[in-house]
């Protein structure tokens, strides 16, 4: 259906493109209104998400339409602007907004197609909102282990390791950017450091160190989910509000065009 819609748009615009029987101003006006209609329809997807129960097609069908019509909007936009950057301030802002909108849409498409697989292949499945709770639990357990180590052995190796590395590592989400590029360098170093100190530990502390190692891995996996699930949520916080700004600019653009071009004549 979406492909058919795209074909229809191209079919309508082709005569305009070759300038056959139609003046340039008509191409601009028609493609402008068409673009406005498409952008309004694309924006209505968020409204559809809010209207859960009326039988308005499945959300996945809407997303498909959103993607294909989004591509169609890019084509119409090129026709509308003749592939040139405008000169007026408002038009430049509108041009930039639309370009950003398209870029964020494509970026979101990429994220939604790539991040889920990485999430399901690493760590435990975790609900984003509960990550702080689990982080806290890990931190509490690590602190118990360190206290136990202090109580049961004369060595302060694990306590020092905690103070030097773990305290900061456990205090909040860490290595967000590294996780976005799937780098495990930091956690590898941390665990390597812990294993290196293994030779200085007594048998009881070795058992505790092994548990610490597991907990570092667990925390690192939580950070991985936090970073990647967070990015999936964050891009929508950019994409959706920008839609409203774009719509406002579009309306202003239309009003000004009619006021100063057609109104003037």
């Amino acid at each position: 259906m979406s492909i058919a819609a795209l074909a229809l748009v191209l079919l309508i615009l082709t005569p305009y493109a070759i300038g056959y029987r139609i003046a340039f101003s008509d191409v601009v006006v028609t493609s402008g209104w068409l673009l406005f209609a498409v952008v309004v329809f694309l924006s209505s997807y968020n409204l559809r998400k809010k209207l859960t129960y009326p039988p308005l097609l499945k959300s996945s069908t809407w997303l498909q339409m959103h993607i294909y019509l989004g591509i169609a909007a890019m084509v119409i936009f090129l026709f509308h602007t003749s592939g040139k950057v405008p000169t007026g301030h408002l038009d430049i802002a509108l041009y930039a907004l639309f370009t950003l909108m398209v870029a964020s849409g494509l970026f979101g498409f990429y994220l939604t197609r790539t991040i889920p697989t990485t999430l399901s292949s690493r760590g435990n499945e975790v609900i984003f909102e509960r990550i702080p709770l689990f982080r806290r639990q890990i931190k509490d357990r690590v602190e118990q282990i360190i206290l136990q180590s202090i109580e049961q052995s004369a060595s302060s190796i694990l306590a020092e390791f905690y103070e030097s590395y773990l305290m900061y590592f456990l205090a909040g989400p860490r290595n967000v950017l590294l996780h976005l590029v799937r780098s495990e360098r930091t956690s590898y170093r941390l665990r390597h450091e812990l294993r290196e100190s293994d030779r200085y530990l007594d048998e009881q502390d070795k058992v505790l160190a092994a548990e610490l190692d597991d907990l570092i891995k667990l925390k690192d996996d939580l950070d991985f989910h936090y970073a990647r699930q967070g990015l999936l949520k964050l891009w929508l916080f950019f994409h959706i509000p920008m839609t409203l700004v774009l719509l406002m600019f579009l309306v202003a653009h239309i009003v000004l065009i009619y006021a100063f071009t057609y109104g003037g004549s």
Partner: protein
Amino acid sequence: MVEVNTPVGDKPKRWDLPFGMDFTNEAERREMSFSDLNDLFAKEPFSEMDASRFPDSLPLASIVANDTRIRLYREGDAIVRQGDYGNSAFLILDGDCRAIIEGLDPAQLGRQAGHSKSLLKSVKGLFTNALAPEVRDSRLYPQHRDKAVFDPSGTVFVQDVPNILELSPESYSEARHNIIPEGSLFGELAALGRVQRSVTVVAAGPGTTRLLEIRWQGLRDLMKYDNGLRDHINELFRQNGLKGAFRMSPLIQAIDLDEDQWDQLLAEAEFETFGSYDWHGTYQQLRKRDEDLLTQEPVVQEEGQYPNGLLIIRAGFARMSRRHGAGEYTFGYLGIGDVHGLQELMHNVSTDDHSPIQTTLRAAGYTDIVRVPTRTFEQVIYPAMMKTWPDGNFPEKFLGETMERHKTAMSTRRASWRGDRRKREFSGAPMMEFLAENRYINGTATMLIDLDRCTRCDDCVRACASGHNNNPRFIRHGKIHDHHMIANACMHCADPVCMIGCPTGAIHRSEGGGEVVINDVTCIGCGTCANSCPYENIRLVNVRDQSQDDALMVDPVKGKAIVKATKCDLCVDHHGGPACARACPHDALTRADMDDLLDLSEWLNR
């Protein structure tokens, strides 16, 4: 939001709402009167019951007064409809009824969609949902202090009822022209077995037919303390279950049997039960002890054995496994109406080479089996199959699921890992093992989430909440196999063990669709259903009163919060089916019927 707790009435109890008052239609609500009860105790089976056998906490008179209701039908009115799920049995007090086994068009049965909310109401709900969690209108609750209709003195009074009873020896299935005579009990199979009604019963007059409807909680208690009723119902259960089982098998439905062949089949077929009816308790214990479930499951038929008959699953589930190294691997399961041993029997009857049973069949929890002995199969079923399909080209769909599942299993074994994850067979043996081991095979609307597609946006959760007064009825969390999650959402089980033990019948099958739903008004928050659910898909919540600024409702005597059981209702009262599946932008979520392995396999291997 005000956090002050306000007393709204007594703590809910069983029989707060007698069965006679549990009608949507106000005009039908009527409590049992003194004379009604006197009439009932003068009739069989109640006249034959020994009231002294009933415990003080559960007196016979209270059961009858609260778990039964008198219903009047005009001649021709449908009392129960074939295919419906029912939670009650009927005793004919005056008049006759007629059982119609087949030939009725669904339209003739007046089937229609459930009481869906209007579109306007659904949309309005999106904007008027409560801000606080679990807000209710306490005025709807029967124990609300403003309601004076539940006067306990008007219900319990007859203590010295005459005893002994014997129901009519004739079951409706045996009655001439399917007339069910006065004094008969019907509908007990569906009520106790948690299965669909197998026949349509209409009032046959003359004039008004008067029936006593007994909800299954009452029937269960009556059976528990009265031997006569128990023996009688068990016998009926056995007779009617046998016929019903044959009707549920696609194979038997497809072949053309004459009357003599039917008689032989019914006379020679055997009825067996494996496992425990209350399987969920054992299952939960085994899971806690982390024991291998497969070895604990009773063997119905073992690989390598002589095929001593065609097995038809009447109720419950069975796991199919094969020996593999030192253990066994699961490659499929059977549900109601499926057959086992058919391939081997067909092979043996058509060749001199005798093949033993190829797969072990085990009761996954609880399984009722109808066994058609090999000789009967050879004399009745096989000839009828050859007559129906003379070219020997038996359609797979009529051969039950076994053939299909064998095929799936074969392709599964061949499939394995091919280097490319997308090409991997996700409905293979490990998935079957996962589904059978965790008893997810019970689900008819299991929530499956493909984690490779799910962006964790929670649109599904929000959609669910928006249709349930801002309360999501599932948790996007659950057991994972590979990249598929079975989320904690009610699966609307084929065998809903949550319904066992509900004292008020608040948890029930909806009419028509058969979804397992909870009546919030009659739920007393006892937690029986939540404890019984092996999948932890029912949650008990503290409810708030919208008329008291959303304050928590509390029992004024004990000061404890009023609790209600909640779960996914499959958006039964909304348009368009479950909102969660429709809300997923990436088609990552589906509600799957585990009995339809082909559909499931297709979805898993997209």
